[in-house]
């Protein structure tokens, strides 16, 4: 193996000669430069395999022939090797990104600086001598000072100068500390100094450590001394910042890791606090940024803060080093990629990003991948790092820290997805002259994106076990579809459909799809719903082309993973992939980006609540879903509360419902059925496999004080009622259905909360049935939107003549939803009400019954306004939906009718399922009749027969009395003998529920929306004040450095 000292020596030697190579021409210099980086990276990479599997011992490298402490030594172990490879790759990609950007002024000059910055980072990473560390720190700093002058923007100069000022303060503090450490321990080598430092007088050590920490804090860009670094991100060329992120910043961080061995344990809380303040505060302040580059600066600061927070924990062994390493690698890969991409966009404000990377290959995909990775979503390594960190913290009982960490992560969601929202927004006036990312611009992002993905997938397998083949097949199809996204929608959806069908057959053969188990039932739902969406997608249209089918496959695979989960980790990983893939799909709607980002923020909050709940369980030693039932005491209460809240937020329960209408209505039309039918049920699945298990296992939880289950049921009922009421007042067909969906999920929550066999049967019946009828409604409306080009209901009317099939679908959908017999909606309601009665929750019973009555208003409104009444002149030429969509609807009609005629087809497996859960039966089946445990009966089949017979009889009667009457034109109506006005004025449709609105006016004010807006504004105002601490004045920044010393002196452990 090659001696790693070459990592420093070779670039230095080449660096000295680089001016000479430059004389031979620029290509030669660049080639030599690139070759050097490749060489060093290869040297480091060659060590990796042996170091990873432990067959190679870490190497201690001497210089000058002397080992520590006489000479300066370096060390090359696994962390060093990983960091060096990362730094090398970053430098290589930065060279690719920066070389084409060199202008006549800088040509040939920045290369030398880049190479030396890299060398400085190598030195920082490897050295084991305190003063040598300082020297390399200075090399890195001076390299930074110099290279930020890259580019024409003189704000980079200003940032560079401020950075130098505070850097000088850092050097001062560090030198004082190093000099005294030498004085106190007699050595400079980090090999033996940690062992000697405790012999030093405590009084002196406290002050020395204070200076050391202050100096390192400046180098690490912790709050409050990160101002110049932020300016640097703001002003300097992003490609340069990528290099610094991948090389220097990591080097400094690792240097801090080495130095941290000197700190007595009393300092650890201080380090952790500083790190966490930086993480949470940095992310918080980033939320107010409207300049993406500066935002990336805040983000970098925050991420570094998180790693600093971890340093003491890794030292004490509370957190495995691997976790911190994953976070660091993830941050490097993602942030560098984002910075390179940022370098392509010349402007600095968010507006300049509108519709960025619309054309060209892969820019937007890579940007999305970078954002997903940096916000810690699976399968990227950051997720596994964060998970491990959080679980370790949970084991150590550090719940406060977990809270702060998750809060900071949530802030991260807010600004990153707002950024991406802007990118997704298509604004033709702005996107016309967008720069297109060139091949070299994408080299780094692609390399790092791929690296992150591969590493992440490796970890996915490592941490969650090999997923079943079916999941892999679907995910793989998804990835392939993403790559070939320019093919026609027909091909994409057909491939997806085949993939889903193949997976279903595969899973069915293994018996995984048994509907009498919870996972089996939900897998059936997922595969069935997915197949229907893809089938409908064969017709093309909104949400069936481009990257949507690919993302959809990934979504389906994540849902399968979630449904099959046995451990909390598997569940959460599936959950988070579901979150982002559905988010990206929603953003593909025409006006989707904004609601999508709101969706993402609420989903993020839900995810973190769920994670928090899981941590409460893991802290108590339970890592599996089944183990949740064994939780007791406060762990159970916390797990129940947090999981429950998370699931409620994700299901858009009242209070958190503000995300739903936008996300549902603006998502691609053919995807909305899935969002409503399947994804909204996933939190319910969560309730069943996680939250309610806790409650079931803890009678104390149920009996003490206010019954939490009743509370949950009440939330469900209020959601059902409130959303129904809101649905009444919508003019937008999809918004109406959106509120309706959320309300329907409220019924399911009520059923689950009853926690009885009958309640669960009702809930599960509704889960399946809602998929069918709401899917039917959404598909029908999607067809209508496809044909008419509008979603506003009063702009339609009379479409029954033009789209009879869609009318029938809608009719069946609304009858099923309303619960009017003889369709199965009544069966579901009957089950639910019986369960509520048996449970004795009368007020909830009243509320849900009332809600279901109110639903009539919007249901009639939907079908009437769209299909009945007067046909608009502009819709005279509208045709029925295309064949695939029609087939989809027919299939769902068949399903709905089958459930109506013979619900036992579903109820029998559900009964078996519930029996397995409760060891008690919900129903007995007396022929076609359903009999509850309390003796109530209902015979759906007979009811259907009765209605059909009556209907046929009556229809015959009417035929006899009045054989086919004459069909008349649509304007041939009784109008006092006058010529009626045009159809637009005859169609009573806009503000349909006007009297109703007047009556309810006080209740339907958008209070909740106002509340969230106030939260956003108030929080934003406070944050805005906070971030004004970065006044832009270099002097103030230096003052913060002195302030930091003072604060540490007054509050630190040395006082």
């Amino acid at each position, binding site marked *: 193996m090659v001696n790693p000292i070459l990592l420093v020596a070779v670039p230095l030697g080449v660096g000295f000669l680089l001016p000479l190579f430059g004389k031979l021409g620029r290509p030669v210099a660049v080639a030599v430069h690139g070759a050097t980086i490749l060489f060093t990276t290869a040297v480091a990479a060659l060590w990796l395999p042996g170091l990873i599997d432990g067959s190679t011992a870490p190497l201690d490298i001497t210089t000058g022939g002397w080992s520590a402490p006489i000479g300066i030594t370096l060390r090359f172990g696994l962390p060093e090797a990983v960091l060096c490879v990362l730094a090398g790759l970053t430098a290589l990609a930065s060279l690719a990104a920066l070389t084409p950007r060199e202008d006549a002024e800088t040509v040939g000059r920045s290369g030398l600086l880049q190479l030396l910055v890299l060398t400085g980072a190598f030195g920082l990473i490897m050295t084991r001598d305190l003063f040598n560390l300082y020297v390399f720190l200075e090399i890195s700093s001076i390299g930074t*000072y110099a290279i930020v002058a890259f580019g024409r923007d003189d704000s980079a*100069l200003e940032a560079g100068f401020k950075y130098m000022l505070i850097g000088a303060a850092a050097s001062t503090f560090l030198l004082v500390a190093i000099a005294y450490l030498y004085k106190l321990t007699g050595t400079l080598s980090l090999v033996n100094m940690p062992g000697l430092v405790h012999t030093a007088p405590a009084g002196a050590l406290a002050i020395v450590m204070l200076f050391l920490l202050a100096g390192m804090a400046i180098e690490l860009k912790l709050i409050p001394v990160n101002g110049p670094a932020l300016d640097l991100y703001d002003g300097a060329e992003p490609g340069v910042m990528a290099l610094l992120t991948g090389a220097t910043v990591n080097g400094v961080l690792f240097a801090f890791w080495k130095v941290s061995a000197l700190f007595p344990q009393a300092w650890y809380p201080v380090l952790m606090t500083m790190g966490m303040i930086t993480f949470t505060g940095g992310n918080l302040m980033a939320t107010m940024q409207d300049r993406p580059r500066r935002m990336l600066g805040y983000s970098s600061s925050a991420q570094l803060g998180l790693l600093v927070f971890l340093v003491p924990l890794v030292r004490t062994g509370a957190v495995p080093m691997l976790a911190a390493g994953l976070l660091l690698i993830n941050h490097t890969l993602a942030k560098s990629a984002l910075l390179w991409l940022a370098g392509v966009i010349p402007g600095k404000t968010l507006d300049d990003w509108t519709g960025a990377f619309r054309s060209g290959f892969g820019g937007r995909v890579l940007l999305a991948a970078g954002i997903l990775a940096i916000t810690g979503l699976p399968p990227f390594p950051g997720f596994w790092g964060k998970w491990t960190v959080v679980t370790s913290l949970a084991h150590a009982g550090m719940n406060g820290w977990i809270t702060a960490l998750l809060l900071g992560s949530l802030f991260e969601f807010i600004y990153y997805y707002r950024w991406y929202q802007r990118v997704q927004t298509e604004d033709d006036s702005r996107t016309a002259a967008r720069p297109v990312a060139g091949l070299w611009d994408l080299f780094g992002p692609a390399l790092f994106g791929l690296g992150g993905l591969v590493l992440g997938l490796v970890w996915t397998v490592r941490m969650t076990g090999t997923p079943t083949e079916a999941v892999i097949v679907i995910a793989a199809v998804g990835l392939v579809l993403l790559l070939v996204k320019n093919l026609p929608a027909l091909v994409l959806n057909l491939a997806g459909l085949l993939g889903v069908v193949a997976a279903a057959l595969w899973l069915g053969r293994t018996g995984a799809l048994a509907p009498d188990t919870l996972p089996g039932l939900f897998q059936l739902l997922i595969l069935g719903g997915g197949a229907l969406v893809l089938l409908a997608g064969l017709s093309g249209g909104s949400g069936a082309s481009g990257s949507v089918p690919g993302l959809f496959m990934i979504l389906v695979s994540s849902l399968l993973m979630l449904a099959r989960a046995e451990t909390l980790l598997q569940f959460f990983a599936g959950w988070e992939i579901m979150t982002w893939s559905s988010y990206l799909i929603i953003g593909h709607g025409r006006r989707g980006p904004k609601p999508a980002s709101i969706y993402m923020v609420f989903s993020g909050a839900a995810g973190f609540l769920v994670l928090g709940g899981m941590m409460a369980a893991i802290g108590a030693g339970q890592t599996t879903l089944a183990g949740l039932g064994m939780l007791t005491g406060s762990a159970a209460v916390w797990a129940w509360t947090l999981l429950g809240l998370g699931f409620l937020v994700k299901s858009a329960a009242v209070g958190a419902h503000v995300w739903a209408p936008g996300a549902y209505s603006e998502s691609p039309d053919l995807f909305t059925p899935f969002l409503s039918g399947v994804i909204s049920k996933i939190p319910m699945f969560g309730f069943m496999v996680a939250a309610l298990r806790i409650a079931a296992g803890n009678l104390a939880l149920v009996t003490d004080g206010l019954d939490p289950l009743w509370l949950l049921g009440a939330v469900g009922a209020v959601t059902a009622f409130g959303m129904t009421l809101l649905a009444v007042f919508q003019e937008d067909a999809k918004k109406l259905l959106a509120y309706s969906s959320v309300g329907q999920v409220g019924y399911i929550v009520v059923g689950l909360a009853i926690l009885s066999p009958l309640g669960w049967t009702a809930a599960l019946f509704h889960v399946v049935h809602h998929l069918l009828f709401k899917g039917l409604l959404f598909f029908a409306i999607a067809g209508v939107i496809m044909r008419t080009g509008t979603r506003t209901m009063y702009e339609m009317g009379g479409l029954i003549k033009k789209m009879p099939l869609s009318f029938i679908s809608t009719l069946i959908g609304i009858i099923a939803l309303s619960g009017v017999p003889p369709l199965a909606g009544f069966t579901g309601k009957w089950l639910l009400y019986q369960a509520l009665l048996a449970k004795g929750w009368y007020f909830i019973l009243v509320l849900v019954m009332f809600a279901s009555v109110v639903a009539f208003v919007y249901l009639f409104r939907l079908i009437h306004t769209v299909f009945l009444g007067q046909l608009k002149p502009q819709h005279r030429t509208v045709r029925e939906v295309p064949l695939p969509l029609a087939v989809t609807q027919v299939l769902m009609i068949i399903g709905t009718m089958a459930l109506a005629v013979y619900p036992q087809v579903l109820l029998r497996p559900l009964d078996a399922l519930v029996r397995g859960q409760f060891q008690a039966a919900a129903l007995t089946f007396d022929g076609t009749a359903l009999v509850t445990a309390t003796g109530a009966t209902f015979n759906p089949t007979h009811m259907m027969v009765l209605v059909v017979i009556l209907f046929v009889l009556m229809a015959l009667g009417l035929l006899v009395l009045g054989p086919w009457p004459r069909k008349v034109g649509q304007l041939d109506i009784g109008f006092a003998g006058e010529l009626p006005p045009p159809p637009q004025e005859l169609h009573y449709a806009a503000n349909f529920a006007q009297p109703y609105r007047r009556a309810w006016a006080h209740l339907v004010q958008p209070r909740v929306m106002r509340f969230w807006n106030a939260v956003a504004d108030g929080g934003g105002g406070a944050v805005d004040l906070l971030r004004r601490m970065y006044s832009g*004045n270099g*002097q103030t920044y230096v003052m913060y450095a*002195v302030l930091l010393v003072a604060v540490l002196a007054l509050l630190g452990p040395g006082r």
Partner: protein
Amino acid sequence: MNGLTPSTLYLATAILLILMGLAAVLVKRNLLKMVLGLSLVDTGIHLLIAALGAHPGRTAPILDDAKYLADPHTLLARVNLVVDPVPQALVLTAIVIGVGVTALMLSYVVRLYARRGSLDIGEIGRLKW
């Protein structure tokens, strides 16, 4: 002046230099004055490090006298004759690094002045928040 050791004197002087320089950085608005202040800080730091190696009565660590060449068993005796050379080596390095940083800062000042036409630190606060 009893009890005032040379070390204390040097250290006190060094600290005063450092504080003086930092005060200039914190108070003066002129960029060049701030850099001058940092230069004073540097000088102070150098003095501080060297002072930590000071030992009254001992000579410079240059073994150019024959008395140091006595037989090997007196090797250790040298230790009590010369001052600690390590801080001196460190100061040497620090001085060179310091001049490098100063030079770079001054080039920044010159360039900023060329662009902005002012040496006021308040003028270079365009990037903020």
